[in-house]
Each structure stands twice: as C-alpha cells, then as structure tokens.
C-alpha cells in the first residue's frame, strides 16, 4: 500500500507514502538546490496528503554538512507546523561524530537507528500525537 506521490515532487529524491507516513530516502551526494527543492516538496506533500509522520532515511548519505543539517532541521520544523512529526533514520556513526564536532547537534531532530524503528516510533508510541489511527492501518 505504498504509492509514489506524483504531484509536486520534482527533486531527484523518491518520496513514498506508506499509510500515514511519508518515507523519503536520501542517497549519495545531494546538491544544495535538490535539498531545498526536497524541503518544499515534503511540505507540499504533507499538506496535500495529510500524513502525520515523515521518515527521512539518510543511511545512504556519506556526509551531512551544516547546509544539509539545516535543511533536515527545517523540514522537521515545517512538518511540525503542518501537524506531522519527522524522524531522521539511519544516520551513519561517522556522520554523527562529524556533526557533533562541527557543533551541529540538532537538538530538535528526532532520530531512529533504522527506518523500521522510525516507523515504529511514529505509529506505536505517543498515540496522542499520532492521532491513534496509525497503528490500525500499519500495525
């Protein structure tokens, strides 16, 4: 029950809808303009589809610099204003070490070790924020 959102998605990043969650998978080296386009695309997708969660899988991302870090934090803030929660999944240990040394601890960003754990976090825990119907559809 996943379908690719066709409308408004123009960056080179796949955005899939899985029930009440948008799954965004970042791969390789993302150009700055692609990252900014993705931010807009996710906002529009959240607003149009009414999903309650966004999972951003960055397990395929080799580096997160301050630009991409800011984009991730802003996506989470945007989604929050649009009534959806964001979880960043699969950060590589070397990326985590580098971000801390860079001074970018992104305290507002919720993380999970895997996409699966991120889905679990969005669908099973904190049912108040998940509007309660997530676990029925996905569980």
């Amino acid at each position: 029950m996943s379908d690719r959102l066709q409308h408004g998605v123009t960056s080179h990043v796949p955005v899939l809808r899985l029930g009440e969650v948008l799954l965004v998978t970042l791969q390789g080296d993302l150009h700055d303009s692609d990252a900014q386009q993705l931010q807009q695309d996710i906002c529009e997708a959240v607003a149009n589809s009414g999903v309650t969660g966004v999972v951003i899988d960055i397990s395929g991302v080799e580096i997160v610099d301050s630009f991409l870090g800011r984009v991730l934090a802003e996506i989470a803030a945007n989604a929050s204003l649009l009534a959806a929660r964001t979880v960043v999944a699969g950060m590589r240990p070397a990326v985590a070490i580098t971000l801390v040394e860079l001074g970018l601890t992104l305290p507002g960003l919720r993380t999970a070790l895997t996409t699966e754990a991120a889905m679990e976090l969005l669908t099973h825990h904190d049912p108040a924020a998940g509007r309660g119907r997530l676990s029925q559809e996905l569980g």
Partner: protein
Amino acid sequence: MPSSTAVEASLPIQSEMDLAWVRQHVRQAAAQLGFGLVAQTKLVTAASELARNTLVHGGGGRMESAAVTRGQAHGLRLVFSDEGPGIADLDRALTDGYTSGGGLGMGLGGARRLVHEFAVDSTPGSGTKVTVVCWVTPPPRPYGGL
C-alpha cells in the same frame, strides 16, 4: 607511498555541481592516503563547508589539494582560495552562530574543528585563502606542548 596523481588537483569552485566534485575528489584523495572512515567523513565535511564559503561568500574560486609529509607523518592539504570581498572581522567569522549569509554560521568555525591545522589569510577587498591540513596519523606534539 600512494601515487600523488589521484591526490593532487586544482578544482574550480564556480557552481553547486563543483561542490559535489570537490567532495568526491576529497573523499577519493583521503581514501587513497589511507584515512579511516571517520577521518574521511570529517575531511569531506570540512571541505564541503569551506568550498561552499568560497562559492557563496567569495563569489567562486578554486581548491588545490596536495599530499604533504612532515617527518614520518603524511597527510592531505587543501587550499580554498577566492578573490572575493575578503573577511573583515576574522574572529567574528570564526565564532559559532555568526553568519553573514543565510546559513547556520557553523561553516568556518565548524570546519576548523574538523581538521588538524587551519589557517585563514584574508584581506578585505582582495580575497580569502583558507588552508587546512589533516594528518593520517598526527605528527607527535612537541614535548611539553599542548
């Protein structure tokens, strides 16, 4: 000793596409010189920050990379240069959270923390040169030094 052909380069920084080339080159050069995964990641991240500064604040420029040795130690030196407006207040530019662009203000100060040696040469009006060095294994510190 690794061949220097894959390490030494002079790359233009004129577009976003060039930022991607810089990252890719630094990754390959660092791997070639024997940097571990975490060190590679730090170096590529620092290069990405500095190359973006060159592009956004310096109006474009170049990155030169070269293998360097000091005694038994060997490492990678990256030089980012532009002919932009320069940095008027260097201390301020290195302070976390200070930004003259639209970023987080972590670029210069953050990049400094990711490398072993860091030097900025900037004159207002005549451009900026940032030189960073990372050692595969850091050279021993002078006895009694920091």
